[in-house]
């Protein structure tokens, strides 16, 4: 049972609530700057080409234009992992790649100047499919990456960065299996989380080597570090974070737009703002990685996985920044959900001539599992194993071990999530609805229902480092210094809550520093699900440190030992004797007390999200409708109930569940243009189509920090897509292999459109499909009736 706290676990008002509802919250584009210029980017019409010649003279002559920069004008700043992507290059690698930058007195003039830049291209052959890109003779994106294979492993995770899962003896494992299944599934619709606020930056360069940036990011400190390295460690970088209009992981890397603004400011000596249009946001920012897995699994009748082998191919688009990290984390996460002794899972990251993939909520694991769990399902189908029983049996248990992202082996010391999965299944009504593999749960004329379940969890909740200060003031107030922005999770207010609980002062008496890298200590940022445990730990420790100093300082005044003192609402007294107390002011009015807290990485805890879905498929139109969602998780201790509920409801959007239903980035297969780079053609869920969502949140104390809590928000998007694929396959009685489950794919699976795109005789097909399904349903119903009678 969770403990009762004064603030923790209570619904409290977000500190920025009034600003948000009055339009007063300042997002990047709302900040006013003196003498500001506006930047725009000229983008490539070709997927792959050399720039033979650029003539910018006409653009430079347009009144109001202050700078035009091409690859010939800019320093050799190189980004990516490994560093192969120049900020501006003489080669373009996708339709929309940056060719030139313009700064002008307003955005319209900058846009008009783009049209005056004359570029001569030498067009090169392009490649859009990852396996095509790996073939000998395929167009090569970078000299440094032969075969378009991106160097495995990220230096950020150390020299032994996880790049594969290899252990035990797979042949022995397959030999012990009751069923061995293999298959290829892809999660390749490169969905886009599209936060509403587009990417952007304002940069102000000061000679000789200093730049201040206003950024839209979850973690402004990380921007400072990324840019410092990108700028050759020769530029002093300061970053200001503000309210962030959504990120979902994507704004972890905004180095390109930040570099563009920096270069234009350097060239003009004035602050320069670049805000991407929504079209640029969709076609030239961050997509989910494409994932294709060919795997072979061995399974016993009791659901034990005896062996996994295969290849996980990841399409990163025209470059990788975080993809190696996503593969490393994905390789860890696959072990968390599959307790197996024998592995031979190899990976490869491949470059293709499309917009880049990058960091997105679900970070590697979502992409991997959407392709891998369906292969497990083939074996479960063969052995008639209920998938809920399977995930209960196979999700990591206390004492189990796994290789995590740095290549080291960790022993799990968290909780067993079986109870949580059971409670979710009960809320959903899984047992009543489950009819067996490839069986609809209900049939009504042409409409068939199906159910599915997915699971995801990671040991990222304790990744990377955080630092915080807490400063106590003699008037009984406090300030938290933590370099985090508010990007929608409510975490800035949650850290206030944690500090308030430690210091026992009202939340209103605590302010949080602006997310300015100049004044705050190191902060990696609220990525993955690390906010609650990692960042929270730093804030808690800083508050505890400050409290300890305060009590030690005033202890002599109360003739007591510091450890016997309590403080509540700015008063200090001996525990149990509140009648004799002194105020914080006893520290002296010309003094503040500064506490410091630090969190170091811990990969021995993992969160877990199980998502159950029910869909209804119209077998005459192929349309899939989402009827019900149940998310089940255990947060250890809920910090803020409405905030958590919001995070879990987020399972639909930001390329989560809906990336299996209608979300996809449509790439022209011949030219490489992204054809739906607008918010009509890129589909997102509206108020008109809200399925009921039930969130089952348990609170089993976890050995994390003082409040026994862990983060679960990020992973809410991840189990859903695979659950949808399972549910639709069950509804129609045939395995679907691709996301999203469009009407075309459903009708094809039903045999209503043949491979040549022609329509089959519908009467015959319907009769056949209905006969097959009805026979199975009837058999099942009869069997149930029999056993029901006995009970």
């Amino acid at each position, binding site marked *: 049972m969770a403990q009762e706290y004064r603030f923790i676990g209570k619904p409290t008002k977000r500190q920025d*609530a009034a600003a948000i*509802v*009055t339009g007063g919250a300042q997002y990047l584009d709302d900040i006013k700057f003196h003498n500001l210029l506006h930047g725009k980017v000229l983008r490539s019409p070709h997927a792959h080409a050399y720039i033979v010649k650029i003539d910018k003279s006409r653009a430079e002559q347009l009144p109001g234009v202050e700078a035009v920069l091409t690859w010939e004008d800019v320093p050799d700043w190189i980004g990516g992992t490994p560093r192969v992507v120049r900020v501006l290059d003489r080669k373009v690698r996708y339709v929309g790649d940056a060719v030139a930058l313009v700064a002008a007195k307003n955005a319209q003039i900058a846009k008009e100047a783009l049209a005056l830049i004359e570029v001569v291209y030498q067009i090169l052959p392009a490649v859009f499919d990852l396996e095509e890109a790996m073939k000998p003779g395929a167009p090569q994106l970078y000299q440094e990456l032969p075969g378009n294979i991106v160097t495995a492993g990220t230096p950020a995770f150390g020299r032994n960065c996880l790049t594969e899962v290899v252990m035990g003896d797979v042949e022995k494992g397959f030999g012990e299996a009751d069923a061995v299944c293999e298959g290829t599934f892809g999660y390749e619709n490169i969905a886009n989380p599209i936060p*509403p606020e587009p990417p952007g930056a304002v940069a102000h360069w000061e000679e000789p080597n200093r730049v201040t940036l206003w950024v839209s990011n979850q973690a402004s400190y990380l921007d400072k570090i990324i840019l410092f390295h990108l700028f050759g460690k020769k530029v002093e970088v300061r970053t200001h974070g503000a309210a962030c209009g959504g990120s979902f992981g994507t704004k972890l890397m905004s180095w390109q737009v930040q570099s563009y603004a920096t270069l234009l400011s350097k060239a003009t000596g004035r602050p320069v703002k670049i805000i991407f249009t929504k079209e640029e946001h969709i076609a030239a920012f961050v997509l989910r990685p494409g994932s294709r897995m060919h795997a072979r699994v061995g399974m016993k009748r009791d659901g034990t996985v005896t062996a996994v082998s295969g290849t996980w191919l990841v399409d990163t688009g025209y470059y990788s920044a975080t993809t190696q990290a996503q593969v490393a984390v994905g390789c860890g996460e696959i072990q968390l959900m599959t307790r197996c002794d024998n592995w031979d899972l190899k990976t490869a990251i491949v470059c293709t001539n499309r917009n880049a993939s990058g960091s997105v909520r679900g970070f590697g694991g979502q992409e991997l599992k959407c392709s891998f769990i369906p292969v497990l399902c083939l074996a479960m189908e063969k052995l008639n194993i209920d998938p809920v029983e399977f995930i209960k049996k196979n999700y990591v248990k206390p004492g189990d071990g796994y290789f995590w992202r740095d290549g080291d082996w960790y022993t799990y010391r968290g909780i067993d999530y079986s109870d949580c999965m059971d409670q979710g299944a009960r809320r959903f009504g899984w047992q009543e609805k489950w009819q067996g593999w490839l069986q609809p749960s209900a049939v009504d004329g042409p409409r068939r229902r199906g159910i599915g379940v997915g699971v995801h969890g990671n040991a990222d909740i304790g990744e990377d480092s955080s630092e915080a200060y807490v400063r106590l003031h003699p008037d009984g107030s406090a300030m938290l210094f933590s370099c985090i922005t508010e990007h929608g999770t409510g975490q800035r207010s949650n850290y206030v809550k944690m500090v308030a609980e430690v210091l026992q002062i009202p939340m209103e008496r605590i302010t949080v520093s602006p997310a300015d890298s100049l004044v705050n200590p190191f902060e990696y940022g609220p990525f993955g699900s690390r906010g609650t445990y990692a960042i929270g730990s730093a804030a808690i420790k800083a508050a505890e440190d400050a409290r300890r100093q305060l009590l030690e300082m005033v202890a002599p005044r109360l003739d007591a030992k510091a450890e016997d003192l309590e403080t509540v609402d700015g008063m200090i007294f001996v525990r149990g004797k509140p009648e004799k107390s002194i105020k914080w002011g006893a520290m002296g009015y010309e003094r503040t007390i500064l506490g410091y807290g630090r969190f170091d990485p811990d990969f021995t805890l993992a969160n877990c999200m199980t998502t159950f879905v029910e869909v209804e498929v119209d077998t005459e139109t192929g349309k899939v409708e989402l009827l019900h969602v149940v998310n089940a998780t255990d947060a250890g201790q809920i910090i803020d109930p409405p905030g958590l*509920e919001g995070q879990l409801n987020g399972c639909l959007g930001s390329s989560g569940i809906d990336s299996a239903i209608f979300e996809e980035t449509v790439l022209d297969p011949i030219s490489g243009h992204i054809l739906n780079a607008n918010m009509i053609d890129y589909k997102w869920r509206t108020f008109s189509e809200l399925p009921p969502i039930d969130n089952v949140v348990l609170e089993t104390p976890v050995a994390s920090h003082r409040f026994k809590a862990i983060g679960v928000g990020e992973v809410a998007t991840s189990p859903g897509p695979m659950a949808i694929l399972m549910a639709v396959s069950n509804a129609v009685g045939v395995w679907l292999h691709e996301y999203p489950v469009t009407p075309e794919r459903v009708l094809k699976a039903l045999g209503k459109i043949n491979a040549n795109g022609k329509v089959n005789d519908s009467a015959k097909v319907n009769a056949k499909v209905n006969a097959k399904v009805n026979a199975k349903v009837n058999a099942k119903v009869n069997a149930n009736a029999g056993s029901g009678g006995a009970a």
Partner: protein
Amino acid sequence: MAATNKGKTAKPAKVVAFSVNGKAVELQIGSEPHQVESSHTLAHTLRETLGLVGTKITCDNGACGSCTVLIDGKAILSCMTLTVECQGKSVMTIEGLADPVSGRLDPLQQSFIDHTAFQCGFCTPGMIMSAKALLGENAAPTEDEVKEALSGNFCRCISHYHVVKAVLAAAPGGSE
């Protein structure tokens, strides 16, 4: 109506006058820095000329509802409205909802706070304005009517469920 009578062609206007949040605004039309260009959208004018940055721009192409404001009480998209075509209109933005004297929030705004009906908050002003238009026409909407009224508003965090509750709770004729 044959086109041959009285052969005048259509004419441009020199100024445009309308009200924003109850205050009269008169803007010259032209291409000087202090003027409004005929191609400026209302969203642009509100944010860049009048400094009312509470109105957010997400898609700037009519698909997301972030820039929703009220014109004569109706919810419209300010990114798809030319400022020069606002002559004589009454525009209300998110900045105009709270009581200008007491600063007291509109019941809708308070309800959004009470229900934590936002996550990143970027789409919230547009949501509140769509809801404001609804409650102006229908003091006791059903849940379906709330969803319908907000069906053109994009939110990626999925604050929808909390928003629906907040709007129903703020409805003057509602039962909640």
